């Protein structure tokens, strides 16, 4: 039997998990170029829901952890091939054209269209993972060989026992995109075109739109948007812009990269007082295992 036994119930684990989850926030931004268009995003998200299940095979499972997007703003930049109307000669002469219809070119800039889409609150993502627990022992590289535990504490380099969560499987369901996003995107494209042609009177905008057919269809062609806008957007954000990695990295870093629990070794049991050094107890053979009901940590008092 080990000298020291600690156990935390599944309920306690969920309480701790809830505290960790509620303290988490993350924000990120990035951009990329994809042939005829560019895209950039700015995101901020926090976590909600989810539960921890302790499993008899020495693993824990975190299920249905929701990523709530407080900010998810995407800006699409589209470079549309230049289109010109007019310039035809209406009074030709032997010496050349005496009078031409004025030539108007549009889509001369790059990008021509900036389409901001604010998807905040319209998307929801979900993470589930299975992980095992393991212990580790950390010796600070800055700790000098001559240091005893008091010197190490004073220098801020004490040895530590650590408990890590090692992910075995991580499943990120990136986006559950609401149907409304399709309409939102079309409206955003239409509004961007109106802004682009804003210098023209209304009759001229209508003339140009009629001349070029549906500009929305043109933009959709340029963006290579299939019928399922949600799938396209999911692919753009998750894969092309690497937001999937942002989510996974942020959450895994927060929950898993750093030890979920660490404590000094030797462990302080009587504080320094009145010039007396603290009394610390060396901890040996720290081990952890998980059952269906609880996590059990065992250790011995070292020499």
């Amino acid at each position, binding site marked *: 039997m080990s000298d020291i036994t600690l156990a*935390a119930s599944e309920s306690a684990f969920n309480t*701790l998990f809830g505290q960790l989850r509620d303290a988490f926030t993350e924000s990120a931004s990035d951009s990329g170029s994809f042939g005829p268009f560019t895209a950039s995003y700015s995101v901020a998200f926090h976590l909600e829901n989810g539960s921890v299940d302790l499993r008899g095979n020495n693993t824990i499972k975190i299920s249905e952890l929701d990523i709530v997007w407080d900010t998810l703003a995407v800006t699409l930049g589209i470079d549309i091939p230049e289109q010109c109307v007019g310039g035809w000669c209406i009074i030709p002469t032997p010496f050349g054209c005496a009078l031409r219809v004025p030539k108007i070119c549009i889509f001369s800039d790059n990008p021509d269209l900036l389409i901001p889409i604010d998807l905040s609150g319209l998307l929801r993502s979900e993470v589930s993972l299975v992980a095992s627990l393991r212990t580790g022992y950390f010796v600070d590289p800055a700790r000098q060989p001559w240091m005893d535990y008091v010197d190490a504490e004073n220098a801020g380099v004490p040895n530590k026992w650590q408990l890590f969560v090692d992910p075995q499987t991580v499943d990120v369901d990136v986006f559950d995109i609401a149907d409304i996003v399709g309409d939102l995107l079309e409206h955003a494209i239409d509004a961007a075109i109106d802004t682009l042609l804003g210098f023209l009177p209304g009759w001229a905008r209508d003339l140009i739109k009629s001349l070029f057919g549906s500009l929305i269809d043109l933009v959709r062609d340029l963006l290579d948007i299939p019928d399922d806008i949600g799938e396209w957007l999911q692919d753009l954000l998750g894969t092309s812009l690497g937001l999937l990695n942002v989510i996974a990295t942020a959450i895994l870093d927060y929950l898993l990269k750093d030890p979920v629990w660490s404590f000094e070794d030797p462990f302080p049991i009587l504080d320094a007082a009145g010039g*007396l050094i603290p009394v610390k107890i060396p901890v040996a053979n720290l081990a952890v295992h998980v059952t269906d009901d609880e996590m059990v940590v065992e250790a011995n008092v070292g020499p």
Partner: protein
Amino acid sequence: MALTDHSDLYASVTESGFNHFVEHIMRKRPSLFAYGTQFVADNWRKLLCEPPDVAPEVLRHQNPVVTVEDPIPLLGTDGQYGLNFGVQVSKLALDLYPQSAQLPPELGTLPDQHFSLYAQVCAGLGCPEDRTLEQFPPAPVPPFRPVDREGRQTDPVPPSKDRQVITLPSDRLLCCCLELFVVGHFEITGPAGSEVLEAKLDGLEIVDIRPDCLEANLECYLRLLMHYVVLPRLRIAVSAYTFGLLDGLAHVTLKPATSVPHNPAVEDDQLKLYVDVEVTP
């Protein structure tokens, strides 16, 4: 059956683990277990009845091995002379229910949910040699003589506050070691959120002291020493049993579980503690 069937968190320490704890405390804070005059503190290796095994870091950081106390006054010298002394707890061993260590008949058998503590207490008085007595004569108390007509004594002794206590030198202590047995139990005390685990004394017995009145007086003194000095310094915060597991979680507080019959429990040669986690808004 899970360890946390009746609480959120569970912590236990075995009897041997506890005794290892005590060994570390005795080695790393020896001044909690040894008391004596400055002279004894300065020469503890030579003078203490059982020189303790002191952790090297204690000496490296120049921590005291002996808590310095005033010399024992020689009664009737009006504070002029005092004696060196040293008192120490040199051995400690804990036995958690069920009983595995023999107790003196006066304490009976170890009750359920109790612990017993064996301690060896050594004490010694620095008894000066005869030649020292010649070096330090009695205070110049004037011989009995008639008072003057106004009732005043002539040649009065100076007030004691103006004099410094002279500790009569001695190069060793007259050591005597006693075996002490304590029976007690653990309680969780303190305000909610700041509970501490502390030991309470139920009985104390010194072995083989005669006459009985001397034993009773010594036991009384040692009981007070345990009650006022040793045990309060060995209280452990309940939160320490989580080894910092909940540090940094501002909305989590610990409270002793109330759904178990005994908390803390002393059984199976272990001290067990059941704690619930409470989330505050």
